[in-house]
């Protein structure tokens, strides 16, 4: 067993035994050795004395050469048991007399007298000494002792020493086995206590303190530690209980929250459902509202013209009022629809690149009637080299139109100015449109919810100035849609400044949307020489529309062929090969999209421009499928006239050289005409005036 792993008890005993044993052995051995050495010394002294006496006694005998006398003198040594031999040498080294102890064996003697003095030779002590007579040497004496006293003394000592060590060791063992308990007892007790604590995990146990020494203090410390642990244990239990309570509470809370969130989710679903229902309702309503409005506006326009020709001035004015009210209603419906589309996130962007200056000029021209109404003058400041911008031109136009018409509306005999410039900010080009008026202005309170829907600056304003109160809200959302912004600065009575900041290059919200690239300026030419340049095919299941279109277009000098269904339309298209096809979308059996698809799929008919005329607001789809223009009912007749005229001119002028391009363009994807007009723009324009050429 390893010495280090011995128990404390054994270690203490071992230490005590070793220490006391070592002390006893060392001290007694030292004492004995000292005694033996000094005894040896005294032995040699004795022998020297002996030699002196013998020498003195034998000196005369030697001097007078009396051998027998010398022998007698030496024989006196018989009484000394330890002296085994004695020799007298003459001065010249010869043996003069000799003596050997009777008990000693015969022996040889050292031949010549050697160095004087004593020496230990083996187990013998030898002495050489000069024999002198009156100080004059007469010979040498040799004495040899076997030191038997010393040997017996050493033996006796060894015995005493061994028994002494054994007895003292025994007593030390006895005493240390009793005394070690003083130290090992408390430690063993402490160990027992610790084992008990760790086995039973009960911290109420305390170790007993025996003495006030280090171990006593250790036990005190251990007890303090136990007390601390007990305390902590209690606190921990308490905290644990509390935690459990809290956890339960929390779990209850979580269940509650879950239920709440479930309810909230349900509510959200309900709200979404409601919203969807609202959107569906609005869409339905718009369709339902537009169809009768279509008839009202269309027929009132027809009637107005006819009445005008007949010279019934009063009737004309009444008809104009009907027309105006209808158009206002239409504008309202359109705004509400736009707003709901924006809210629902269904408003897409149709990005195209266009020149800014012509757009502004066209805009200003359009505004002319509104300007003259309140006797306002307009100033247009266009920065040089405005260049092009890429944006949804319809929406840009609508924003500016809203701002400008508002400016006209709220300014009387004042000046309205339009400033357009290009600036750079954060590595991007921005186009800044600024509309300034000297009108009634807006106060701070009004400014706060200026861009909120259905809020005009004042309720009274609606009565006084009219309007839907949706224009700015829509403009604001359009600007945001194109990642731009609108700001207003105004003081009541001081006029207002509206600033629109749009990126020169608007990036689409989601790439790969339905909008198509529109860079090609190549006009689509008809490959068909036999095209009837004065025939227009109207495809619509609504007889009112067919009737109105026929009457309007005939008036413009076109020959109109009407089809009541898609199949009929396709058949007629092949028969007459018209200049333009106007196409409705919602028709029984074969809808407008299908017809458009088939038209574009047929190489003979693919070149015929198709103008969508519908209540369905999905121009993206129309352009995707290859429509040239998209008008939304009720149709702005002036707009329609312009479009048809444009197509007529294009096709007739390109007929001659069309052949050259025909082949290369045959397989090209259906192109939309440059600078196409959208129905929505047309609609908004329609609020006040026809587009300006």
């Amino acid at each position, binding site marked *: 067993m390893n010495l280090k792993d011995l128990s404390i008890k054994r270690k203490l005993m071992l230490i005590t035994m070793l220490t006391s044993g070592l002390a006893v052995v060392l001290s007694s051995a030292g004492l004995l050795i000292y005694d033996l050495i000094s005894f040896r010394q005294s032995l040699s002294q004795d022998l020297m004395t002996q030699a002196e006496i013998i020498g*003195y*006694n034998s*000196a*005369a*005998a030697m*001097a*007078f*050469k*009396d051998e027998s*006398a010398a022998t007698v003198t030496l024989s006196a040594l018989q009484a000394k048991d330890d002296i085994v031999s004695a020799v007298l040498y*003459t*001065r*010249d080294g*010869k043996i003069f007399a000799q003596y050997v102890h009777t008990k000693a064996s015969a022996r040889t003697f050292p031949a010549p007298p050697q160095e004087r003095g004593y020496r230990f030779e083996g187990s013998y002590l030898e002495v050489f000494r000069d024999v002198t*007579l*009156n100080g*004059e040497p007469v010979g040498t004496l040799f004495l040899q002792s076997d030191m038997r006293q010393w040997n017996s003394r050493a033996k006796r000592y060894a015995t005493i020493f061994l028994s002494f060590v054994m007895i003292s060791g025994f007593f030390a063992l006895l005493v240390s086995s009793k005394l070690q308990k003083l130290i090992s007892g408390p430690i063993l007790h402490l160990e027992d206590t610790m084992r008990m604590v760790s086995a039973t995990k009960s911290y109420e146990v305390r170790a007993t303190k025996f003495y006030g020494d280090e171990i006593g203090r250790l036990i005190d410390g251990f007890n303090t530690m136990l007390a601390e642990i007990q305390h902590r244990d209690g606190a921990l239990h308490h905290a644990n209980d509390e935690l459990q309570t809290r956890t339960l509470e929390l779990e209850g809370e979580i269940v509650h929250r879950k239920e709440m969130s479930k309810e909230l989710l349900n509510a959200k679903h309900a709200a979404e459902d409601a919203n969807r229902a609202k959107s569906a309702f609005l869409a339905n309503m718009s369709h339902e509202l537009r169809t009768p409005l279509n008839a009202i506006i269309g027929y009132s326009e027809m009637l107005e013209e006819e009445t005008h020709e007949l010279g019934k001035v009063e009737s004309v004015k009444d008809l104009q009022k009907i027309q105006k009210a209808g158009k206002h209603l239409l504008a309202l419906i359109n705004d509400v629809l736009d707003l709901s589309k924006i809210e629902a996130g269904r408003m897409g962007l149709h990005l195209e690149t266009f020149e800014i200056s012509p757009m502004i000029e066209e805009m200003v021209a359009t505004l002319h009637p509104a300007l003259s109404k309140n006797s306002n003058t307009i100033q247009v400041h266009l920065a040089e080299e405005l260049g092009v911008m890429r944006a949804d031109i319809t929406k840009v136009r609508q924003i500016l139109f809203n701002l400008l018409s508002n400016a006209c509306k709220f300014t009387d005999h004042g000046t309205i100015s339009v400033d357009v410039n290009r600036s750079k900010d954060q590595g991007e080009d921005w186009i800044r449109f600024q509309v300034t008026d000297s009108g009634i202005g807006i106060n701070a309170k009004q400014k706060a919810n200026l861009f909120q829907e259905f809020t005009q600056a004042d309720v009274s304003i609606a009565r006084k100035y009219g309007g839907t109160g949706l224009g700015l809200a829509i403009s604001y959302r359009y600007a945001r849609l194109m990642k731009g912004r609108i700001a207003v600065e105004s003081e009541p009575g001081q006029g207002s400044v509206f600033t629109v900041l749009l990126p020169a290059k608007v990036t689409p919200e989601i790439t790969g949307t339905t909008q198509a690239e529109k860079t090609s300026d190549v006009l689509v030419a008809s490959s068909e020489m036999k095209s009837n340049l004065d025939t227009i095919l109207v495809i619509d299941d609504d007889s009112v529309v067919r009737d109105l279109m026929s009457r309007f277009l005939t008036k413009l000098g076109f020959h109109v062929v009407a089809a009541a269904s898609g199949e009929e339309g396709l058949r007629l298209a092949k028969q007459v090969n018209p200049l333009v096809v106007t196409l409705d979308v919602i028709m029984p059996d074969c809808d407008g999209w299908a017809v458009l698809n088939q038209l574009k799929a047929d190489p003979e008919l693919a070149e015929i421009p198709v103008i969508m005329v519908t209540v369905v607001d999905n121009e993206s789809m129309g352009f995707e499928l290859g429509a040239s223009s998209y008008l939304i009912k009720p149709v702005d007749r002036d707009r329609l006239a312009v479009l048809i005229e444009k197509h007529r001119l294009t096709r007739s002028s390109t007929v001659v050289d069309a052949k050259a391009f025909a082949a290369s363009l045959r397989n090209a994807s259906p192109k939309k005409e440059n600078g196409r007009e959208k129905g929505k723009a047309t609609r908004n324009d329609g609020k006040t005036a026809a587009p300006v050429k």
Partner: protein
Amino acid sequence: MRKVGLLIVITCLLSAMAMGSHAAGVDSSDSSEYLIKAGFIYNFAKLVEWPTTAFPQPDSPIVIGILGTDPFGGTLDRIVADKKIDGRGFAVKRVKWSKDFKDVKDCNILFVSLSEKEHIDSVVEAMKGLPILTIGDAPGFAKRGGIINFTLEDNKVRFEVNVEAAKHADLTISSRLLTLATIVQQAAADGRKSE
């Protein structure tokens, strides 16, 4: 008588020569009987104490007188030549027989040679009361009142001591010397008559 003495002398000489071969002499170069005797005389001086009055001064030499024919040759002179005992040196002188012993009286040791054996009694008489160690070479010298005289035992030189005579001469002889000597008493009758 003379013939006997001569004979003795011769045998002594022979035996001394024989002895010298087996027992070491004092001087290895001269091993005769008288060589040994000369050494003995020197050793006697060591073991005998004189009264302080015997010397005129503390460092006065011990004077050895040889009465009669000198048997030592120069041996005795040689042996004691550089020796000292208790700070005293030695002086050897030859003295002649005379009535008043004028030369003899300042000696400390007086060796009475064999040649003077006729005058032993008168010499002893004359020396009586004086602190002079008398050593005789003739047999019976001590018995006749001398202090020491040489003898031969088994061809070995031994000696006799007359303790009484020494006391009279106020000399102290060491017990160590005495243990080796043959102690003799003074004969009551006249020595010459008995011989």
